[in-house]
């Protein structure tokens, strides 16, 4: 069970394994380990094996695509027809989706069986997976620690080899930060590359789905499946189909890596700083040159984000009212009572806090001071990146300021929790692609993530930069012990 997507696709192509066999193996590991990790909310072996059998039948007729038969787990934020789709919330704890998200359709069309739906922070609001209604996910490297969030279940299941890959979503770092904390590779594409249709909205102008896997090469293969125009999402970009693997083998000689000085200051842990410095040294060895860049407004990204994301969320989550689907409070005396109790009981504390922040910043008299100001800062932050990309090809830095923290350590302190996304949020505000890949371990054996940030539509370049690093290092091959 140490195979990558790439390796599994070769096994299937050569007839050395069937999709049913692979799926059974992974389902077996899920059954053995999920009660420890709580990475999956829903597993349905019958469904998985039926899809796997269909994939095998398809391969037998010679109709297989590159990844047909390779199983994958999906974050429980993607609506999948016939599957419970909870978004980590009591509000949707009974919601069996009557339709497929675009991303789910793409994986179905590719013939990739669904291993199950992964646990997540409620409505993707969190950085530790502790806000899930279904309980926290444990970090496979140390089950007393958090896996990061919000795509914590996806990150943990890939790290623990319960799935070869998983989908995630990233609004402020929700793919990259858990990828870093669990020692895997995860990519958030340019906003608009992956359709948001059927991906339950948190903050619409920031949300973006992406792959989480062991290697950059796997992420490229998966992005080939996920990416693509979708007429049902007005923000989906109509672009020519790309092969994200096309530049993987390119040597890095002459590559200009931008190092933002703001990412290496106070707040960054010593071990992480050291691992990132070593990665930089490795890149120099590979022929890249480094250049210091400035992202002066990025220090304001957390503040701007905690206005914009809650504002959009407060509106996006208004549809959860107990009328058409989902949870409805059992007892109520009138309509308002039904609304207020349904929402008070159906949402967890963090979601309610964010709805209230969002409601406040949009309310009469505060809109300009908060919402508009935050949108102006967003522009300044995006402009910083545009300046930086005039002198470099990719930007490099840490993904998270620290390695995985202990369960409960920040659970009661939203502000400290929010600061764990300090290096990732600016990327979402600008709409740029970013990724995280393993670059070492701290003194306690916990993985450290290296963040790469590309220019708009620079996914193939970024994947090339990550892949070349992974050819020269073996951090991404390390597996947690005892798992």
């Amino acid at each position, binding site marked *: 069970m140490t195979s990558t997507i790439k390796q599994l696709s070769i096994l299937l192509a050569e007839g050395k394994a069937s999709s049913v066999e692979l799926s059974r193996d992974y389902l077996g590991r899920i059954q053995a380990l999920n009660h420890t990790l709580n990475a999956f909310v829903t597993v349905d072996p019958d469904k998985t094996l039926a899809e796997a059998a269909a994939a095998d039948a398809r391969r037998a007729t010679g109709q297989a695509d590159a990844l047909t038969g390779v199983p994958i787990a999906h974050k429980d934020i993607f609506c999948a027809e016939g599957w419970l789709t909870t978004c980590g919330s009591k509000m949707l704890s009974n919601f069996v989706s009557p339709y497929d998200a675009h991303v789910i359709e793409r994986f179905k069309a590719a013939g990739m069986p669904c291993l199950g739906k992964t646990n997540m922070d409620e409505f993707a609001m969190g950085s530790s997976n502790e806000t899930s209604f279904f309980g926290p996910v444990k970090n496979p490297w140390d089950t007393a620690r958090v896996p990061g969030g919000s795509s914590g279940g996806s990150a943990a299941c890939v790290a623990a080899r319960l799935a070869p890959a998983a989908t995630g979503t990233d609004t402020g770092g929700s793919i990259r930060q858990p990828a870093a904390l669990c020692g895997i590779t995860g990519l958030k594409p340019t906003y608009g590359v992956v359709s948001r249709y059927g991906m339950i909205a948190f903050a619409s102008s920031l949300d973006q789905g992406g792959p989480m896997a062991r290697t950059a090469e796997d992420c490229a293969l998966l992005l080939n499946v996920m990416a693509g125009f979708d007429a049902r999402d007005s923000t989906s970009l109509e672009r020519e189909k790309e092969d994200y693997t096309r530049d993987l083998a390119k040597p890095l000689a002459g590559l200009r890596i931008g190092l933002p000085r703001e990412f290496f200051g106070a707040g960054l842990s010593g071990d992480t700083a050291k691992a990132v410095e070593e990665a930089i040294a490795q890149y120099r060895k590979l022929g890249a040159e480094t250049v210091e860049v400035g992202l002066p407004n990025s220090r*304001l990204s957390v*503040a701007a984000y905690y206005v914009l994301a809650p504002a959009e969320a407060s509106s996006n989550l*208004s549809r959860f009212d107990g009328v058409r689907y989902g949870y409805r409070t059992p007892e109520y005396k*009138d309509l308002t009572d039904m609304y207020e109790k349904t929402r008070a009981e159906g949402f967890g504390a963090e979601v309610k806090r964010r709805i*209230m922040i969002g*409601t406040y910043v949009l309310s009469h008299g505060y809109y300009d001071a908060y919402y508009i100001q*935050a949108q102006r800062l967003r*522009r300044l932050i995006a402009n910083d990146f545009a300046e930086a990309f005039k002198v470099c090809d990719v930007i490099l830095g840490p993904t998270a300021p620290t390695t995985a923290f202990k369960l409960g350590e920040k659970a009661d*302190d939203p502000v400290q929790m929010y600061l764990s996304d300090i290096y990732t949020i600016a990327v979402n505000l600008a709409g740029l692609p970013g990724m995280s890949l393993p670059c070492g371990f701290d003194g306690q054996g916990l993985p450290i993530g290296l963040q790469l940030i590309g220019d708009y539509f620079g996914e193939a370049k970024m994947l090339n930069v990550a892949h070349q690093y992974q050819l020269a290092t073996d951090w991404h091959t390390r597996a947690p012990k005892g798992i």
Partner: protein
Amino acid sequence: MSLSIDDVKRIAKLARIRVSEDEAAGYQTRLNGIFGLIESMQAVDTAGVEPMSHAQDLAQRLRPDAVTEPNRREAFQAIAPQVEDGLYLVPKVIE
């Protein structure tokens, strides 16, 4: 700035979230902590900066005017809390 208990109650009401007297104080503390973080942005002079609503500066795509959606009432209402005669039922609405 900081939110008063009344602010907390007002926004909870606007957001249709029941907040008890006991909970209100807890929300007040935490929300004010978060606003402490947010307030840092007020120091920045953003005069003349165009607000940014979208990641890409693009125009809305337009859909041809055609009926493409079939009737799926049965599937949709199978997951509804309360329906009758094809209608979603809610506590009496008084106009």
